[in-house]
């Protein structure tokens, strides 16, 4: 907060040039007023569980896609990495989501209604459909690792069932996986948090790109180079989409892009960009060397994680500073007049 507190009550503030962010700001500085510099909207009460889930959910979704493809094209090592990676990432996601609740014991209340106006409700049902199939595919993978002699005991029927349904379950998980990766962008954007809402046009593409980069990276780590070709292509495409759409997103966000450049969030976004570029370049060479593939995969996964944490943090910061709520609304009033039905405003709340 750059406001000085000399005045009593309303503070006239000038969002002036500040650090590197100001150079990139598309919006000329404007004066604004606030109540003692207090935030207008409240930041979400979410802690690091949520950005960690955004990352893990993306890894799970992309891994299920890769596993389904690998299963259909006969790439067993890539299939194994995808299925097991998806299960681990999905399990972590569930723990994070429940842990973040104010009343974790009531997590099943999420299932007492279906509500299309709530991206969290939609997401809950998406995960409820995706999760069991991803888990079944992973179980089949684990069962496949059991030595043949051990599968003839009293649980013989279970092994046979898994063997039979693991493949189809993996395909269902793969088909439902893109919604797991994409809905989380709506989850953030459907808020009054300035830097999340104003990003709604491009954020789904950033998140889906990030999911492809991270899961492709995991595939490159887990599968030998001979089988990891699709993972490399998937990762490379994802990294490109993530980088390009992130830039477009910042351009369309106006003043609310500023928190993506400043402070902790700014450092995370910078790291995300460097790691994704590094991992992407490495991916081009990863077909020849497993160690290059592993390093590139790690870089891509780390880059994806930094993107999620960076965007999360930037939103939290934008909610805590009244500038990002008041100035864009004031600018909209100056441009279009106050919002009046049936005209729909351009931009956010």
């Amino acid at each position: 907060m750059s406001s000085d507190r000399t005045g009593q009550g309303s503070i006239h503030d000038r969002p002036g040039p500040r650090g590197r962010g100001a150079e990139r700001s598309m919006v000329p500085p404007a004066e604004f007023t606030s109540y003692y510099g207090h935030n207008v909207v409240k930041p979400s009460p979410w802690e690091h569980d949520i950005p960690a889930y955004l990352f893990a959910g993306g890894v799970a979704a992309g891994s299920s896609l890769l596993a389904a493809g690998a299963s259909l094209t006969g790439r067993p090592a890539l299939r194994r990495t995808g299925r097991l990676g998806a299960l681990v990432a999905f399990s972590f996601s569930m723990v994070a989501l429940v842990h973040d609740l104010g009343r974790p014991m009531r997590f099943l209340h999420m299932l007492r209604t279906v509500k299309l106006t709530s991206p969290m409700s939609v997401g809950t049902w998406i995960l409820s459909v995706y999760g069991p199939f991803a888990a079944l595919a992973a179980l089949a993978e684990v069962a496949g690792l059991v030595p043949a002699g051990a599968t003839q005991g009293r649980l013989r029927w279970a092994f046979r069932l898994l063997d039979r349904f693991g493949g189809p379950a993996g395909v269902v998980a793969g088909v439902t996986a893109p919604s797991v990766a994409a809905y989380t962008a709506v989850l953030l954007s459907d808020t009054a948090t300035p830097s999340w809402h104003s990003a709604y046009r491009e954020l789904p593409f950033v998140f889906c790109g990030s999911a492809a980069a991270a899961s492709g990276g995991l595939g490159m780590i887990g599968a030998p180079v001979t089988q990891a070709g699709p993972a490399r292509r998937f990762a490379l495409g994802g990294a490109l989409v993530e980088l390009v759409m992130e830039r477009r997103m910042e351009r369309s966000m106006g003043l609310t892009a500023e928190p993506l450049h400043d402070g902790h969030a700014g450092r995370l976004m910078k790291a995300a960009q460097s790691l994704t570029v590094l991992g992407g370049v490495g991916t081009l060479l990863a077909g020849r060397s497993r160690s290059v593939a592993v390093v590139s995969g790690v870089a891509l996964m780390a880059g994806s994680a930094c993107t999620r944490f960076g965007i999360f943090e930037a939103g939290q910061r934008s909610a805590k500073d009244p500038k990002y709520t008041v100035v864009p609304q004031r600018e909209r009033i100056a441009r279009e007049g106050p919002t009046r039905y049936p005209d729909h405003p351009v931009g956010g709340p």
Partner: protein
Amino acid sequence: MFGKRNSLYGPVDPAPETGYVDAPARKGFFTDTSICIGCKACEVACKEWNDVPGEGFDQLGLSYDNTGSLNANSWRHVAFIEQPRKAAEEKAPPVELGMPALRPDGVGATDVGGAGGSDGAEAMDFRWLMSSDVCKHCTHAACLDVCPTGSLFRTEFGTVVVQDDICNGCGYCVPACPFGVIERRKGPQGSKNVGIAQKCTLCYDRLTVGETPSCAKACPTESIQFGDVEELRERAQRRVEDLHGRGVMDARLYGNDPDDGVGGTGAFFLLLDEPEVYGFPPDPVVTTADLPRMFNRATTAGVALLAGAVAAFVGSRR
């Protein structure tokens, strides 16, 4: 849900829109800040009636405001703004604001608290704005829209209420609210409903037995007026015209217009300065107005992801 006209944006009567048959008239507050004296009776009455826990006394150093903001443990919040008086107002003629204690020297009634009644003292070079803030009970309530459990619901009175036994504390309503009202209760330890979203209920329990909400009941100047929203809107319009007629050109209504970005609010205000001076957003729009577009973009991105995965395999040589 998306199919119905205006279900996410625009003017509607919320209770019938939700499906209530023969709903009573929509209830709300008209808070006329021009006659607020900053006594905080509303804050106290609300806490007492609704058993809202205190968090100890905290000196914030914000004029007389030691509450700070609307939050889980403050469902009414009186803002105090000490403001250098604008030149235009100094020239304005004395104004009778309908307050019991107007001083003969004609300093505006909102200045009463600070002057200590010392006649003949030099006219103050600032004015004191006081305003009792509360949940707006929006026509299009983002908190209610995004609640995944159905804990937040629309009452037959058109108000928005949390069901404490349903809420699982997901916290989604908190960043969704364009006014920064609702919050997950963090403490104090041992108090009820910790971890659950909390906000003004417009005294739902009192409404169901025909009683006035406790804050409005306690307000000694009738700055907080309770009633049917339609009637309150007309009353507010008359009041602002009256003030304009008396030269108080700063007077304006906030939240009364059913065509605004949240479809009008059930609790609306008469303000004497720009909304952001009081901590209000100047032009709030319910976030879910953009939700169909958000889902469209996400669907496109998801399909692209699936296509990308297919392409990654189709294009790969073994």
